[in-house]
């Protein structure tokens, strides 16, 4: 009995250990020289992934029929950032793919911190002048291009025109209006329809950034935080707080609260964000035809506000063994191919910031969900008006502290001290 038990245990241990040893170590992601395969890390199955599939099909059809793009889906952009951080910190790049999709706002710091993790695109055959200046300002570091843009982060303001009509307004009343006028309309909208005219992810705090950019202002000046001294910033925060307190703006707890509850959950009559939010808006089929898009309000009013928020670009990693193929692939797809961009738009709603690609027939079609408005060409056009503002590696850190300040103000702190607090914490985080 005892012997049996012991041999059983021993066999068990051995069997399991053998299985474990036999379990293959996952092969490194990078490809070998000379073959026809590239791997890429990307996120968002409804947006970026269809765009990459479109590029793969385009390259297969027009360049190399044997080409395979191995798309490794990540659950969020932070997974890609973590993969690069881990690889660079340990000096072991073997787990990185050939190409990564990377968030615009983070790339500058990552190139500065981990120069070996990236490949400069100095000799790639792309006409850079065909791309929006603001978009390229992220992926260009010391005048060297590192990334090829995928989407266009131009901010839109979409409104439910049917609800506006109920309150006696049209979308023209909200185009080029001031935030004060917006708040008046918003109050009326909440009274009449019970819906907020705007919602946002309270923990992500995209709002102050976009509002600032619409004024041509930044959260940073000469590499330092520009918050309490920044009149525009102070005014914007006051407006945001006023909006929340008068039920014009609703802050969700996190991203899924924002998208699932406020937008898909039909709590709002207006959505403002980067145009990549459009597929989310379109997830409510019964509201088809009731939306239209326009530009952002501004503080003064009388002019239209343009901003951009949260796009991403493709970067070749230091682990890529087949840089020529990767460059060729990027140049002949996202570098300006109408076929890629048309399919990316149709399948994923990805809007280009490549000006010539944005003039295709597909872009000029009216979109049924948006009341027949040709929104895509409108967005590309809007994108050309976005003013580049000073960027900083601490973009998201700054947004976080501003978000905390807004929370503090809502809990009763005064604007000045809350912002001073945010500024000192940000300076601290930046090591200033």
């Amino acid at each position, binding site marked *: *009995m*005892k*012997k049996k*038990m*012991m041999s059983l*245990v*021993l066999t*068990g*241990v051995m069997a*399991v*250990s053998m*299985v*474990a040893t036999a*379990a293959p*170590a*996952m092969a490194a*992601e990078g490809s070998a020289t000379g073959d026809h395969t590239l791997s890429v890390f990307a*996120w*968002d*199955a*409804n*947006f970026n992934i269809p765009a990459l599939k479109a590029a793969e099909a385009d390259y297969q059809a027009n360049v190399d029929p044997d080409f395979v793009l191995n798309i*490794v*889906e*990540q*659950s*969020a952009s932070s997974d890609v950032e*973590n*993969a690069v951080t*881990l690889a660079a*910190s*340990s000096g*072991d790049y073997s*787990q990185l793919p050939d190409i990564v999709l990377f968030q615009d706002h983070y790339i500058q710091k990552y190139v500065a911190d981990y120069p070996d993790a990236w490949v400069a695109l100095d000799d790639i055959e792309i006409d850079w002048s065909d791309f929006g200046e603001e978009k390229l300002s992220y992926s260009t570091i010391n005048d060297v291009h590192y990334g090829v843009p995928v989407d266009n982060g131009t901010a839109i303001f979409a409104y439910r025109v049917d609800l506006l009509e109920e309150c006696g307004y049209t979308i023209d009343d909200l185009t080029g209006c001031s935030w004060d006028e917006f708040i008046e309309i918003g109050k009326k909208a909440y009274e009449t329809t019970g819906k907020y005219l705007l919602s946002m992810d309270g923990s992500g705090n995209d709002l102050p950034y976009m509002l600032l950019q619409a004024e041509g202002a930044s959260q940073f000046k000469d590499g330092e935080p520009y918050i309490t001294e920044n009149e525009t910033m102070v005014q914007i925060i006051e407006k945001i707080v006023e909006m929340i307190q008068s039920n014009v703006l609703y802050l969700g707890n996190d*991203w*899924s609260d924002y*998208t*699932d*509850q406020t937008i*898909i*959950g039909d709590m709002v009559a207006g959505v403002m964000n980067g145009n990549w939010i459009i597929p*989310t808006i379109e*997830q409510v089929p019964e509201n088809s035809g009731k939306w239209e898009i326009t530009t952002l309000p501004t503080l003064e009013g009388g002019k239209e506000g343009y901003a951009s928020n949260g796009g991403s670009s493709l970067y070749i990693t230091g682990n890529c063994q087949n840089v020529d193929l990767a460059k060729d692939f990027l140049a002949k797809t996202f570098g300006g191919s109408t076929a890629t961009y048309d399919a990316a738009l149709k399948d994923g709603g990805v809007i280009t910031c490549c000006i010539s690609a944005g003039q295709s027939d597909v872009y000029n079609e009216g979109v049924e969900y948006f009341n027949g408005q040709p929104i895509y060409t409108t967005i590309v056009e809007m994108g050309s008006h976005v003013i580049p503002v000073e960027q900083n590696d601490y973009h998201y850190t700054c947004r976080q502290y501003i978000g905390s300040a807004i929370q503090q103000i809502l809990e009763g702190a005064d604007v000045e001290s809350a912002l001073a607090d945010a500024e000192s914490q940000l300076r601290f985080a930046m090591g200033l």
Partner: protein
Amino acid sequence: MTEKKNKSAIQRRLIPTYIFLVIWSLFSVFPLYWMITAATNNTVDVARGKIVFGTYAVENFNNLIKSQNLWGAMGNSFLYAIVQTVLCLLICSLAGFGFELYHDKAKDVLFGILLLAMMVPGVATMIPLFKMISGAKLLNTVWGFILPAVATPFMIMMFRQNSRNFPVDIMEAARIDGLSEFMIFFRMYLPVMKSTYAAAAVIVFMNAWNSYLWPKVVLTNPKAQTMPMLIANIASGYTLDYGMMMMGVLFCSLPTMIIFFILQKQFAEGITGAVK
């Protein structure tokens, strides 16, 4: 008659106890009930808090296997958890056996030092460990997953405590019979300590199955991901299907629950020995 009366009197006095236990049981089981019903509802119903069973179970399941590598993650989780359990039990029980039954001053001091490892926060060692594991080319392998947790002070302590009940006299007898120290471990200690092994197995398996922070760091390849990573991924996706997510949560929870049910009795016995 009186005995019966007596019994019912006792039960009557226990009524507050029953009430309290029922309330607590409801509190602790309700989230699990909710998980199961939510897995059968569509995303809108889950978001709005529908608490009865729905008809979307099949659809949620289909969506889950379509969008996620469910069986792969299940397989990985089982592989990692089983290997970790077997090795951890072997290594830690050997150590507990050694520390208790061969104890002397030096070993007691060493044991005290090892206990310090209990206080080492996971976030602190994460980065150096990652460098070690990647240096050894063990990223995305079962070894990368298990090595940091294959010997834990808590498990050694558990075996050490339980070993106090091990009859030392029979060791002496066995030695006289000519059994080597290893034989004593395998032939006498292992069978006697069955319930301790069962309790330890439940704890290690659950910890391995449920671990989240370390796998997030060391299993960078989606093919190597575990169940908790899979459901956390669903939850952090850009659009969230609650029904499907809850189906994933259910699949992630079932194995540990089943194992607990099977080993429940031995588990209780093993813990009893550990706290003597």
